[in-house]
């Protein structure tokens, strides 16, 4: 799968999740959305070679739409060329471009290393659609060695954004080194009582204004220096919140979110996901705290957070609009939280299933020829199964045709159409 394809299908998934999140966020556990975001990350970070024989794109194709599009674009690709994409790309002729496109879609070519796909695709990026339709491409400037301007631009973007965060991370880690061990006996007592396989440390640092946690193998909770707990309950709330982050390996998730944003730096939807998923990480944590301490603790927890926010310095900040809303969002979510019910858990299950369906539906087709064959003969029921099942589909091709499959395909179409129209609405509403 090429970078562009990953980005486009990732974008579709993101928009779908945005819609679903907006509609259902007060009705299902927040953690559900973390699972959905994880599916997007899977799409954005892993170039899937296993492709579904049936997908939205191939259905379009079998309906003859792709032929129409090709005619419209004025380029026709002989079936044989599509099927037998040749080796390395040589130059920029239309014929070679067509062959390279076939190359991208075919997963039979052993030579198609992921790196190749990334770099070739950077040149083909803008006009591609997944269904094999070819449209006019602007000629790309390329040096004789084959390194194009787009490739350079792309990698500069990755280097720049990745470098920025790496630099910040290293700076903070160096500063965190100079933290002092926490001395409050109540805190130390709490640490002792924590059942965690990894060794957890709690330290105090005068350079931070809010408690934070870092470290995966050797997690550390950092408390601002001289933090005065209003009562022991507040201390427990705060420490438990950070402990939940540690337990859930949120640091790792944040890393993956950032990586996706840097690799897809040109895709604003991925940045949006990064922001929202980070917020969901916090909200899910808050939910878990309430689950542990009980519904009655909601007000106390909310007030603890507010009093923590109060104690920071009173210097005017540049604070982004997002973070101002983020705190409000958290307080509201905490106060509105209800106990998990069978209904909310069932709803969560449905949403996860929905994500699985969408994930499978946005997998790219194999080459046109192969797919036509696959669609004609057997159809598997992979469309409404989750990831592990897609591996089974290639063997399932030989199996019996399933009527459920055609039903789920019909279900796919309206959903993906809905997300495409939602595309226009969402960016404005989310902003």
């Amino acid at each position: 799968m090429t970078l562009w394809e990953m980005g486009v299908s990732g974008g579709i998934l993101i928009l779908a999740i945005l819609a679903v999140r907006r509609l259902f966020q007060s009705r299902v556990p927040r953690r559900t959305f973390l699972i959905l975001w994880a599916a997007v990350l899977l799409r954005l970070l892993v170039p899937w070679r296993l492709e579904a024989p049936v997908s939205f794109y191939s259905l379009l194709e079998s309906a003859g739409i792709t032929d129409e599009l090709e005619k419209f674009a004025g380029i026709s690709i002989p079936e044989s060329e599509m099927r037998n994409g040749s080796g390395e790309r040589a130059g920029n002729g239309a014929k070679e471009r067509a062959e390279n496109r076939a190359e991208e879609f075919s997963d039979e070519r052993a030579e198609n290393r992921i790196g190749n796909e990334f770099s070739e695709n950077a040149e083909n990026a803008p006009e591609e659609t997944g269904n094999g339709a070819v449209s006019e491409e602007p000629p790309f400037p390329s040096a004789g060695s084959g390194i194009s301007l787009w490739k350079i631009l792309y990698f500069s973007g990755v280097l720049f954004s990745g470098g920025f965060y790496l630099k910040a991370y290293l700076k903070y880690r160096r500063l965190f080194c100079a933290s002092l061990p926490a001395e409050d006996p109540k805190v130390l007592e709490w640490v002792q009582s924590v059942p965690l396989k990894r060794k957890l440390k709690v330290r105090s640092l005068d350079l931070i204004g809010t408690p934070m946690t870092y470290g995966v193998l050797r997690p550390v909770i950092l408390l601002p220096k001289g933090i005065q707990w209003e009562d022991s309950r507040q201390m427990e709330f705060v420490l438990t919140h950070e402990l939940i982050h540690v337990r859930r390996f949120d640091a790792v998730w944040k890393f993956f979110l950032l990586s996706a944003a840097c690799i897809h730096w040109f895709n604003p939807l991925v940045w949006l996901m990064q922001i929202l998923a980070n917020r969901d990480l916090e909200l899910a944590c808050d939910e878990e705290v309430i689950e542990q301490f009980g519904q009655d603790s909601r007000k106390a927890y909310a007030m603890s957070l507010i009093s923590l926010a109060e104690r920071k310095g009173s210097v005017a900040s540049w604070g982004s609009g997002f973070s101002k809303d983020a705190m409000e969002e958290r307080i509201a979510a905490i106060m509105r939280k209800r106990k998990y019910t069978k209904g909310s858990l069932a709803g969560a299950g449905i949403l996860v299933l929905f994500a699985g369906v969408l994930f499978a539906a946005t997998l790219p087709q194999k080459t046109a020829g192969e797919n036509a064959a696959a669609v004609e003969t057997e159809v598997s029921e992979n469309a409404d199964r989750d990831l592990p099942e897609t591996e089974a589909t290639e063997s399932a091709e030989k199996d019996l045709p399933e009527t459920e499959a055609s039903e789920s395909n019909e279900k796919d179409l309206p959903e993906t159409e809905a997300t495409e129209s939602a595309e226009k609405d969402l960016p404005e509403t989310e902003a």
Partner: protein
Amino acid sequence: MDVKLFDSELKVMDVLWREGDAAAKYIAETLKEEVGWNKNTTYTLIKRCMKKGAIERLEPNFMCHALIPKEAVQEAKTEELINKIYDGSADKLFAALLNRKNFSREEICRLKQLVEDLE
């Protein structure tokens, strides 16, 4: 003139105030035991103190001498410190309890009111 030192730097000075002039190596070993800092961290802090004029380096052996007495040191105020390192990247990198830099009086009041309203 009063020198402002961070907690970490004060810890380094503490060793010198307690034991008199000491080798940087000795300070590093002591602090490793006391607070768990590695050698690089301690050395960096010693150099920072030197830059602030709190420590003087004597040769041979990188001996450290405290230039200022304990009483003359002012603990750097919290706001100054926090402003020094916070930037928007922290909330993407680390799980923080509150990712906003700080809240104004009105914002705090509004949040408290929100809690009351939703109770």
